[in-house]
């Protein structure tokens, strides 16, 4: 009985943490999201990519992100951002492919990246 109660409470807690798919809260502001690397060069390229995205230039953003990818080729955040840029450029197929690629390198313990990937997948 005690174990059942703990289980129910845990489930309720988890449900509280989760966000309902499709709800407006899921959308993160890409431009404000700056984490995902500790490499100064990658962070600089992230910033340039963000600026390009905000200027409505996803193709230019992709070139910055591809430079970041060369520095940290297995960083799921870089791949996520690339997927995101493809999505903004209305190329959902490539966005999905890179999303899948990002999953290969996303650690199961990194809640943030898993959340972002989930969110983007839902939006595609």
């Amino acid at each position, binding site marked *: 009985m005690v174990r059942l109660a703990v289980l129910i409470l845990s489930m309720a807690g988890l449900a509280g943490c989760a966000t309902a798919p499709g709800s407006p809260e899921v959308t993160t502001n890409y431009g404000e999201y700056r984490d995902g690397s500790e490499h100064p060069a990658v962070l600089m390229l992230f910033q340039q990519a963000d600026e390009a995205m905000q200027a409505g230039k996803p193709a230019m953003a*992709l*070139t910055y992100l591809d430079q970041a*990818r060369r520095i940290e*080729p297995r960083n799921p955040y870089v791949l996520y951002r690339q997927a995101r840029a493809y999505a903004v450029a209305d190329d959902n197929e490539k966005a999905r*492919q890179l999303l899948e*690629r990002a*999953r290969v390198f996303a650690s199961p313990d990194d809640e943030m990246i898993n959340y972002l990937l989930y969110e983007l997948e839902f939006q595609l």
Partner: protein
Amino acid sequence: MPEKSDKPSSKKRAQSRSASGTTKRAANKAGSRTQSASSRTKPTTVKRGTQVKSQPKARASASGQFTAPGKSVASGKSAAAAKTPNTKGKTATAKTSGQAKASGQAGTARKSAPSKKTANGSAAPKKASAAKQSAKKNAATQASSKQTPSKQTSTKQTAAKKAPAKKSSEKKSSAKKPAAKKPAAKKPATKNTGTGRSGRWLASLVSLTLVLGILGGAYLVYLDSQVRAAFDGKKWALPAKVYARPLALYPGLLLSPEQLESELVWADYRKVNQATRPGTFTREGDEWIIIRRGFPYWDGAEGVREIRVRLQHQRIETLMDDSGQQPLIRLEPQYIGGIFPSHNEDRELVKLDQVPPVLVAALIVTEDQHFFDHWGLSFQGIARALVANVKAGRTVQGGSTLTQQLVKNFFLSNERSLTRKAQEALMSLLLELHYDKEEILETYINEVYLGQSGRRGIHGFGLAARFYFGKPLAELKTSEIATLVGLVKGASFYNPRRQPERAKERRDLILGLMAKHNIISDAERLRAVSDALITASPRRAGQREFPAFLERAKAELQQDYRLQDLQTEGLRVFTTLDPWLQSSVERAAEGHLSRLERGGPSSDSNNSLEVAAVLTSVDGGEIRALLGGRDATYFGFNRALNAQRAIGSLAKPAVFLAALRTDNYHWGMLLDDSPVTVTGQDGSVWMPKNYDGKSHGNVAMADALERSLNQATARLGMTLGLEAVIDEFHRLGVERAIPAYPSLLLGAMSLTPLEVAQLYQTIASEGFLMPLRTIDAVTTGQGEMLSSYAIRGQQVYDPALIAWLRAGLEGVVSRGTAKGLASLPLPLAGKTGTSDDQRDAWFAGFDNRHLGVIWVGYDDNRPMNVTGSSGALPIWRDTFKRSGVEPLTPSRYLTYLPVNDQGELLEDGCSATVYAFPSHWQMRERRACERGADRLRKEIRSWLDWLF
């Protein structure tokens, strides 16, 4: 498909124009038209034998700067100062001004009012232009009449100019004198009027003259249309310029001092004691100072920058510029070739204001001293050449003006006939009629032929400066300028590399002319004469081409661009080529093949061992190096792309992958390596043998791969089924049809090295199938991005499955046929391959950054005495050793479990051979550890087995 540029105007079809392009031409033309309307006077026709004269033509000013002998230096944005020559040894100092289009004048006061004026940049364009025209003519007259000049300096610019008024007045007066006698001369003609015969003759003559006049006029109109069409439109077909990847410097980058220095030298940087100018660098121990040149990258232009790099343990420790620590700085990419039209002309367009004034002055005093005086033809020059040629009894001097030379090069052939000469003269006049001197000069500077590099014609001073001296035009020394000017007379005859003595003699002659005309001082001349005639190597990386890579890049570009646009629009193509890796594989291949041939049977040059190589980035699928044959500069058969050769044991990973995918096999499982016979439907019998000719009984699957056992692999493949194996090939990226013959299990089918690279790429990248690519971005000549190509692909495998396969390939390197790599930092993964009768030797392997596929063999497919291990692997090893190895990182998808000699999984902690497994195998049922007595009994049995 490329990523399109964000700008709406971006089209695949490039819209680029030449550097002297539309805008400038439009500006010039506008100025020219205005000027012609306002100040050009109609020619004054003088009857009966007097020469047709015209008033000085008004010429709109271009933005360029130039120094003419004894005359003008027009304005430009450069602040460079040039000394203008004059005929009496006095020097007029010429400075360029910021915005000014007009130039001032030097010399004594002339009749022409504008010639006295000092024009500056803020002057109204029309007035300034008019002032310049006048000043220029003033200067021209002065030089030609050898009058004593005086010096006059304007606020921002001073030019020695001649006064046209004086000259024109002289002409006028001389023209009018005969005209005064005309009435007397006409009288005899009137006596014959009234006779019918004479009248008919006269009528016929008039008619004939009229017809000829009409025909001549029509011909002139035709020539005029030709001249204007060529000059108003795009002047040149500009080949696409192809660049390697820029070297991105950032803290932590694996970069050896050798690589950094090599890449700088290949990009035509000079090592100096103190780096102060763009294009130079210094090194003091681990500290480097690099003055980076500006460059228009695809994502924006970057300017000159002083970079400080500190290397430690083959990595960048710190990266700084004037403002402190920097996270990322790019070095300009190396030029690696062009996509040329059929005539193979190459040029680097420069605007007149980018050309050192000293060069312009030297060109004019050498080739056409009266350039600013004549209308395209110089009768003085022709007369002088005629006298010189008659005296010499052969052609020793030409009388062509720069305009005529330009017309000949631009419109006409090299035919030596009177007709062509006449056509040249007419077109020169027409050219001068429509276009100002600056535009003609700028066109000449970009058009003139100055050398040959293989198939590539070196045109224009901009490219010649890079080609011969490895630097941009602005960085040339006086002696180098004189050398280039000397080439105009005969690029082959005075080639400084092939004919150094002749070229030096010519250079010194030109330096003498420059000093005589006060373009340089005598001290400068003496210094320049003492300079050695040093040219950069034509075979240096910065000027050589990379045919194999270019062929692939061109093919990729043609998926999105028309060939014609690639050949003519002056596009800039940024590729993935890594010059350091390319150089490493070229060097390794030549070194190893020479060693092999020294030890083997003699081979002639037509039948020597050949090689092909493809190197890619593991995670991006970017082709980083491509070797199409032993001669890396040969534009011919590209083996990397086109040689289909049997891949031998490189096929085995596909067989083992099919086995692992079933989840019923693992690396510790036993395979039977006894002889196998497969009978085909047509009755044919296939009996593969191991390389050592022996059978090895039951072997662990890992052992079968590591030792590349044919019998065990064939049995495994036949058990799995050919279709399952073929499916793996296709899933890994092989697109061509693979016939379902049993021999495919051991690599009897033929693939190109590029196809093999595609196959192994999917393995190296943990199952991400990426089309291999060479293009990063394409921009117009002006730097506007047309398309960019970022990573794309498809995750076709579970990464855990590929990691599992990779574990087997790591065993091949650490214990198996590729243990020749054991001297490198491990783990690395790879597979050797040798086809039947040792006709092909292969190695495919990867570290954490790069995949390399190497093939060695004879073009005629005859057997060699080498295997994949001895023929191809050493090239891979030497390449990676030089370019830098990064060992593979452990996969998070794998776990290691003990397996007994029977191939059974044991519980954790048991003492047995440990193999890699995907994590989910941990959940499988496993045997308990074997006790010591059981193990001892087994060991005794195995000894007995071995003995008997």
